Each structure stands twice: as structure tokens, then as C-alpha cells.
């Protein structure tokens, strides 16, 4: 080869080496459909879950595209109507008997694009749904249920686990909180960035300030929060005790990080110190507990019932409610181990004797607190707000939300609901209404504990359910409109002592189910411990020796409810613990 030929070939190689990486990058990072297809696909109709009779509420209608994003392209008009059910008989109330005040119709035009907000009030007790009819397609969209009664506690919805650009998520804190309040329509939220990044970037004070700025009691509650990320964050050791998201009731943010508190003992000491010096309460969410990389080390949580009272059972990682290899696993989880690892799920932790109530959060990493889009094709990197890390790519489930029965919409009110266990967990943006009671003791009452006179006393179990009429999201499945009326086909399951006890199919929006149990109260125990080098552990991933005889509920039965909807939405509430007085 002469010099000219070598030069020509070198240039060709350089051109190939220049074009190829950009093409490969484009294939993985650019989705033209996501970029340019904003066609309206459905409406999301959102209302408060509970209102006192005659109280005014805000009705929000959002137009979504096929990726659950706000679509600005809808230019039609909408009509409103109402469907109501009796509070005690659950029968349909004729429209003429319902007294309400709301607009008849509205247009989406150049001014009202994508989102419209209306005021409404209903003066008739009952379960109500507001129906929005799209005059262009003729489709009818149902709201979440509005329970019109005279309540002590209001049901509000929030998401207390999310990440911004301050750690491995997307968006700046103020953007993320704005999205939570004005798009996801949450009542409360917490941005809980990984402490290890905050420590690296000196970000605690910036996050604390952003959260305090976003907090507006009565309208939107922003809660201080941070995640302790043992084992899998930069510049920490490989020791893995699981991830604990912390929220605090006050205006100060604790400096929690797995490189400051290197062991669980350090962590508990710091939380004790922080709560006693600031007067703030603290609660932790063990989460994605069944994911192979982050199997939760439950034994570290045994002695801290004031902090460990809640288990995150739904998030963008899937479900940690039951073991992914149990026969009742429906949802699954991201990176679930290929073989069964005992003692990883929240259900198994309950069998060990931990008293965890079921909550759901987002753990969103795409800057969309309260309504992550990473289960849709819009997980892609060119979606605003941007993310530096790959953290949104593998999150294939919708983000969950928690319903909390609060006395007032303040930090203290939300914390009281969480601490008292007055919570409902839901796997997507849905807001159903549920009451679960045993012998008239509802979830959250008396620390969710029911006392019966003896071990065979009858337990009357009631589940009151008003389903959300909105379309549903699930793993890799964006919400799409119902073809006709919503599919109300739903299975209500009751789990007792870790096992599926009863299930019943329903196909109505509002109902109450009653079951009776008079079998002997035995309690539950965890029998999955394994022996390694003369010591027992809850599973092969665990590093904390335990006494297997102590892993039980101390003779107390527990029940929780799981509700499986037709298109993948899952709701859970409970547990209620039942203790015999003799």
C-alpha cells in the first residue's frame, strides 16, 4: 500500500469510528415515537377521595398521551355527569336524587391546554363518581371514588420515596415537587435522595431548603426525607443491610448516609440522637426487599418498633409484599432472584414478628414524583427532566402511592397517620377507597390491634371497597382507556398469618364483603431460617445470627387484604393483628 492509500483507508476508518458510536447511542437513547407522538389518548379524572357533605372540592381533568404524559393537543369539549351509590346499601342512587353543583361542560382550547381544574360540591351522602365524557370520541372517563360523609379523618394521597438529580434521579428538587403537586396531584410527598450522594455533594442543606420551600400546610405537604443505602452506593462498603428510606416530621433533615453511619448500630444511634435533639419523629421504609441486590436484612429492624412500622410493598421495583417465588406472587419484582430466598418479603417479615403496615411509594428516578413514567416507553433519556445515571431504565413498574387518613393536611397530620398505620397502599396512580376492619376495629385504630376474649372468639372481617374508575397501569403497561364502562372485575384476597386464607371475585364498583373466622388463634412463625457454621440466619444473604425460636408473632394472628384489579392495579391494606385476651 502506498502512502496515499494508507491515508485514504485511515480516513475511512476514522469516519466509520466517528459515525458508529453516534448511531449506537441514537438507537439506545432516542425514541422518535416518544419524542413526537403526543396525541391525546385518555383523560385522567381526579377528585379528593373524601369530602364532608356540601364541602367544595377540586375536580381536575388531565389529558394524557399514550405514555401517560400531559397531552397539549386535545381540542375538544367535555361534559360532566355523576354516578352515586348508597353509603350503606351500596345500591345505585338515581341521578335525580343526588344534589350536586358542578359545571355542565367545558372546552379545551388554546388557553385551557392539557389540564383543567373545576370546583364542585355534592350535598348527598354516598360514594360518588364524576364521569367526564369526551365529545370527540364519545368515551366516558370515571373519576376515583369520592366518599361523601362526615369524616374525622380525610383520605389524602402521597408518595414519600423519590430521587432527584441530587442523587441518582432526575430533575431539580423544586421541579420534582412541582410535578408531584400540580401534575401527579399528590397531597403530600417526600424527596428522599440517597444520603451517600448528598454527603458527597454537600447536598443536605439544599434538599432540606427545597423541601421546606415546597411545604404548604393545608395544600401540599412536603416531608423531609433521605435514604440510607447500605451496600450499593458509591464510596461505601459492600456490606448490605438493605435500603431504608427515612422521613422526618420536622423541618430539619438528618444527615443520614451509609458512609457516615457505616453500620445499623451507627444508624440507630444517630436517629435516636436526631429525634431527641430536634423533637422530630422519624419513620423508615424498608423497600424493594425482595430484589436480589438489596435483600432486606430484617433482623436489624427487630428492636426498633418506633421507627420500623411500615413496609413499602409497591414501587417502580415491583412488589415486595410476598416472596416472588411464593404461589401468591402476582406482580413480581425487578431483578428478583432466580431461586427462592426465604425471609425477604414484607409478608415473611410479618411472620417473623415485625409489625409493618403496608405502604406504597414511587422510588421514582425520572423526576416524576407521584407518577413515574418509567414503566412506559417514555423511560428514555431524552425525556425531561434529565438523569445522569441509568437509574430510570430498568424500572419497569408504575410508581405506587399511599393513601393516609389524616386529621389535617400538615406534616404532623401525615406523620400521625403513618405512625398510627392509617394507610392504604396502591401500585399505580389509582386512588381507591378501602376500609378493612375486624370486629369493627379498623386499620389504624388501637395500633391496628384487635383484642378478642378468647382464642376461638369469632372475628368478623369486613372489607369495604370503592374501586377507582380510572384506567390502570402495570408492569411495562401504560394506562389506556376503557372501551366501555370500566372493568370492575376484581379479586379481593385475605391473607392470614402469611398465607392466602380467602378470596372473592367482585364485579361492581362499590361493595362490602364480610367473612367470619372462628378458628383457634395460633399466631404465625417464620420457619425459613438456615444453619451456617453453627449459627442460624433468616436466609443465606443474611449476616446477622438469630434465634429461630424467637421469629414468631408471639401467638398473635394477622390479616391483610390484597385487591387484584383486572388490568394489573394492586391495592393492599393492613395488617390487623388479632390477640386473644386469655
Amino acid at each position, binding site marked *: 500500500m502506498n502512502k496515499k492509500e494508507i491515508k485514504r483507508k485511515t480516513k475511512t476508518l476514522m469516519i466509520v469510528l466517528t459515525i458508529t458510536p453516534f448511531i*449506537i447511542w441514537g438507537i439506545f437513547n432516542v425514541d422518535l415515537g416518544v419524542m413526537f407522538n403526543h396525541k391525546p389518548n385518555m383523560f385522567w379524572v381526579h377528585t379528593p377521595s373524601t369530602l364532608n357533605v356540601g364541602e367544595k372540592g377540586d375536580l381536575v381533568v388531565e389529558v394524557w398521551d399514550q405514555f401517560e404524559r400531559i397531552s397539549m393537543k386535545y381540542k375538544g369539549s367535555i361534559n360532566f355527569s355523576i354516578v352515586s351509590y348508597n353509603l350503606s346499601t351500596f345500591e345505585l342512587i338515581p341521578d335525580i336524587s343526588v344534589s350536586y353543583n358542578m359545571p355542565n361542560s367545558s372546552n379545551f382550547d388554546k388557553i385551557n391546554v392539557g389540564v383543567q381544574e373545576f370546583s364542585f360540591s355534592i350535598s348527598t351522602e354516598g360514594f360518588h363518581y364524576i364521569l367526564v365524557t369526551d365529545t370527540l370520541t364519545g368515551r366516558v372517563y370515571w373519576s376515583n371514588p369520592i366518599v361523601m360523609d362526615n369524616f374525622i379523618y380525610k383520605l389524602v394521597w402521597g408518595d414519600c420515596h423519590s430521587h432527584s438529580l441530587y442523587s441518582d434521579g432526575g430533575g431539580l428538587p423544586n421541579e420534582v415537587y412541582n410535578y408531584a403537586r400540580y401534575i401527579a396531584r399528590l397531597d403530600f410527598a417526600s424527596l428522599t435522595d440517597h444520603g451517600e450522594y448528598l454527603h458527597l455533594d454537600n447536598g443536605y442543606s439544599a434538599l432540606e431548603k427545597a423541601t421546606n420551600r415546597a411545604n404548604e400546610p393545608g395544600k401540599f405537604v412536603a416531608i423531609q426525607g433521605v435514604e440510607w443505602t447500605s451496600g450499593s452506593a458509591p464510596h461505601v462498603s459492600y456490606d448490605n443491610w438493605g435500603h431504608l428510606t427515612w422521613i422526618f416530621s420536622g423541618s430539619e433533615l438528618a444527615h443520614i448516609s451509609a458512609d457516615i453511619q457505616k453500620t445499623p448500630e451507627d444508624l440507630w444511634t444517630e436517629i435516636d440522637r436526631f429525634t431527641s435533639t430536634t423533637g422530630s419523629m422519624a419513620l423508615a421504609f424498608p423497600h424493594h426487599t425482595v430484589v436480589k441486590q438489596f435483600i432486606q436484612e430484617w433482623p436489624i429492624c427487630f428492636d426498633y418498633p418506633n421507627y420500623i412500622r411500615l413496609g413499602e410493598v409497591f414501587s417502580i421495583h415491583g412488589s415486595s409484599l410476598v416472596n416472588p417465588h411464593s404461589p401468591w406472587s402476582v406482580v413480581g419484582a425487578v431483578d428478583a432472584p432466580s431461586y427462592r430466598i426465604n425471609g425477604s418479603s414484607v409478608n415473611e417479615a410479618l411472620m417473623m414478628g415485625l409489625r409493618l403496615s403496608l405502604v406504597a411509594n414511587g422510588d421514582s428516578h425520572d423526576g416524576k414524583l407521584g407518577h413515574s413514567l418509567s414503566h412506559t416507553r417514555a423511560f428514555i433519556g431524552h425525556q425531561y427532566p434529565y438523569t445522569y*445515571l441509568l437509574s430510570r431504565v*430498568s424500572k419497569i413498574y408504575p410508581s405506587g402511592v399511599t393513601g393516609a387518613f389524616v386529621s389535617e393536611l400538615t406534616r404532623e397530620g401525615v406523620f400521625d397517620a403513618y405512625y398510627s398505620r392509617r394507610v392504604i397502599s396502591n401500585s399505580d396512580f389509582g386512588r381507591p377507597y378501602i376500609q378493612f376492619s375486624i370486629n369493627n376495629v379498623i386499620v389504624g385504630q388501637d395500633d391496628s390491634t384487635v383484642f378478642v376474649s378468647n382464642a376461638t372468639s369469632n372475628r368478623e372481617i369486613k372489607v369495604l371497597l370503592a374501586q377507582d374508575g380510572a384506567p390502570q397501569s402495570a408492569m411495562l403497561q401504560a394506562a389506556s382507556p376503557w372501551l366501555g364502562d370500566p372493568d370492575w372485575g376484581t379479586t379481593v384476597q385475605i391473607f392470614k398469618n402469611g398465607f392466602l386464607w380467602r378470596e372473592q371475585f367482585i364485579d361492581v364498583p362499590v361493595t362490602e364483603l364480610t367473612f367470619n373466622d372462628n378458628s383457634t388463634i395460633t399466631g404465625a412463625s417464620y420457619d425459613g431460617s438456615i444453619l451456617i457454621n453453627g449459627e442460624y440466619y433468616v436466609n443465606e444473604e443474611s449476616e446477622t445470627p438469630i434465634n429461630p425460636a424467637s421469629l414468631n408473632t408471639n401467638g398473635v394472628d394477622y390479616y391483610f387484604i390484597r385487591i387484584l384489579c383486572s388490568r394489573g392495579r394492586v391495592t393492599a391494606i393492613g395488617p390487623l393483628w388479632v390477640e386473644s385476651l386469655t
Partner: protein
Amino acid sequence: MAFDFSKYDISVRKVSIGFFFVVLASTLGISLSMVMVASSATWLYFIRAPNIPVVLIQIFIVLVASVLALSSSWMIVEWIFKKVNPFKKEKLNYIDHIMLSALFLMSVLASALYFFNIIGIAFAVLVLWLGKTKIWRILGVLTVTLNIVIQIALFFTVWR
């Protein structure tokens, strides 16, 4: 005493160009240093240093990010204002080597990012085209290959 501007050859055009230079250089510098901080934190996922105090890691990351961002933003702005096309330059002086080193390091660091790894690819391509010596050409090919390999590896590990 008032400053005597008449001693200097100052014109509106020169001031405007200077202002534009400063704005462009600082925008580039700040953005690139943020990308570099994020890149360094990403690599720390793989290189664990649990016993090194965080403050030392912070100093290191900020220094690396600042130096790299400063060099590259300076270089990019210089090219915009230079009359000589750097792609046609035949010989490299020591400043060019410093610049190419910055580009090379930034390309390696940014290759681990999601979406913003396009910066890593762009810098790798610049090393390839601007490195006129054999060693820089080899390093250019290596960085381009590294960026492609990491992108494909990420696809097979976490993409769905």
C-alpha cells in the same frame, strides 16, 4: 482617579466578543464540571473507597472536574475564535497535548453516564480527529471503542 481607557485599544466589538467569550466559557465550564462530577460519582460505584474520608473524595472529584472542564471549555472557545482550523493543524504543541489529555479523560469518565454519554462519544471523536500523532490516534480509537463497548454492555445488562 478615573481609569484612562484611552490608553487601551478598546472597541465595542472587542468588548462584545470578550463578553461572549466569558459567557460561553463559563456556561461550558460549569455544565461540563457538573457532568464530570456526576461521571466521577458513577465510577465510584465500581471503585469502592469506604475508608477514605468523604471530604478527600469531594476535593478530588471537584478538582478533577474543574481542571477538565476548564481545559476543555477553554479549548472549545479558543477554537471558535481561532482563525486556524484545528482539524487542519499539522503539529501539536504542549498546550494541545494538555487539551487532548483533558478530552481523553473526560471521554473515559463520561462514558459511564446515561444519555449524557454522548459527551463521552463526542470527546472521543475529537481525540481521534485532533490527535495528529500515532499515540493520540490509538488513544482516540480506544476511547471510541470504550464508549461503544460500555453502551452495548449497558444495553445487555439493564435495558429492557
